C-alpha cells in the first residue's frame, strides 16, 4: 500500500517536471519577495531546472538529480574562461549540435540577467 502511495507521489513529481511548479510558486508567494539567486534559478523547475539533467556533487541539497548531462563540479578549473561557460548555458547546441541540453538563452527560457546569475553560481561549483 505504501508502495502505491510512493508511486503516486512519483507520478505527481514527473507531472511538474518542466511545467506548473505551483508548489514553488506558492511558497515564493508566501515569503516576502526576495531577489532570486543563481542557485534559486538553477534549482527552479520552471527556470533552469539544471538538476533534471545534472548532479551537483558539492551541493548537499541537490537531490534526485538526473543523468542526461555530466555532474557539474570543479567548473572554474574546467572553464578557466567564464564566457565559455556562459555560452554553454546560453546555447549548448553550438558546441554539440545534437546536445539534448536546453538552449536557455537562444530560446529565451532564461533572461540574460538570469543566465549571468546561473553562470556565477555554476562557476563556483
Amino acid at each position, binding site marked *: 500500500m505504501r*508502495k*502505491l502511495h510512493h*508511486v*503516486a507521489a*512519483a*507520478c505527481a*513529481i*514527473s507531472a511538474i*517536471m*518542466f*511545467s506548473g511548479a505551483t508548489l514553488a510558486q506558492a511558497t515564493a508567494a508566501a515569503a516576502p519577495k526576495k531577489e532570486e539567486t543563481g542557485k534559486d534559478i538553477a534549482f527552479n523547475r520552471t527556470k533552469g531546472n539544471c*538538476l*533534471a*539533467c545534472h548532479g551537483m556533487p558539492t551541493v548537499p541539497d541537490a537531490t*534526485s*538529480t*538526473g*543523468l*542526461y548531462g555530466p555532474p557539474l563540479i570543479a567548473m572554474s578549473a574546467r572553464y578557466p574562461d567564464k564566457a565559455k561557460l556562459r555560452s554553454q548555458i546560453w546555447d549548448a*547546441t553550438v558546441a554539440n*549540435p*545534437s546536445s*539534448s541540453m*536546453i*538552449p536557455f538563452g537562444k*530560446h*529565451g*527560457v532564461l533572461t540574460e540577467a538570469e543566465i549571468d546569475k546561473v553562470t556565477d553560481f555554476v562557476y563556483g561549483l
Partner: protein
Amino acid sequence: MKQQIIMRLLTGIAGLGIALGAATAHATPESDRQAFIKYYTSKYPNIKLEDYVYGALAFDEDSKAQYDAIMEFPPFESDIDAGRKMWETPFKNGKTYASCLPGGGQQIAGNYPMFDEAKGKVVTLNDAINDCRVANGEEAFKINDAKTLGKLTAYMRTLSDGMMMNIKVQGPKATAAYEDGKKTFFSRKGQLNFACSSCHVQNAGVRLRSELISPAVGHAVHWPVFRGGDNLVMLQNRYTGCFKQVRAVPPAEGSVTMNNLEYFHSSLSNGLPMKASVFRK
C-alpha cells in the same frame, strides 16, 4: 531540400544518426526498426528485446517488481469490465462492434494504425471503431476520449493480447505518411528544443530527474495505460503530454500529424506482442 532537412535531423542523433542517415536513401521501415534496435541493444547489451514492452521498467528491477505486484490485482479492473459491457452492448440496429470490425475484433489491434488506400490516409484503431459506429447509425465518439473510446479499447484491445505488432507500409502514399511521422519524431520542437528522439533515443535508459526514460521500441504495444493505477491514458494522450513537457503546442489528437506519428512510432514495435492494459507510474 526536404530530404536534406531529414538527413540533418537524423544525423543529429549520434550513433542512430549514422545508422539511419546512411540508410535514408533506401530506408525502409524494416531497416529503420533494425537501426533502432541495434542502437539500443549495443548500448544496453544486458536488456532483452522482449523486455522493451515494459518501457522504462525494463531498466529498473525494483519498479518492475512493483509493476508485477500491481498487475496481479490490477486496480483498473472495473474500467475494463465497463469496456466489456460497451463492447457487448448491441447498437440500436442490433449489430455489434464484433460484426463490423475485421476478424470480429479479435487479434487485430497489432494491424493498426494502417494506411487506408481508399481514404488516402492513416487510420488508427480508434478511427476504425468510430467508422464502425457511424456505419451502424451511431454517433462517433470524441477521438481519444478516455471515458468512451478509452474504456472500450481498454477491453477491446485485450482481445488482441499476444498478437505481434504488424504495421505494414506499402506503396508511395503509405510511405509518405510513414516518413511524415518519422520527421515529427526526429524534429526538435518547443521552447525546450527537444525531439521525441532526444529523450527516447539519445537518453533511453537514462534518468531525467528521478524519471527513467523508456526506449521508443516497445512503446506502442500496451495501450491504454493506467497511470497511478486509475488514470486512463491512451497513446495519443501520452504524445500530447510529452509535447507539452517540452513547451511545444501539441498537434490535435486524431490529426494527420498525430496519426502519422503513431504509424511510424508503432512500426518500431513490429514483432513485439500486444498487451492491454497495463499499469504505469
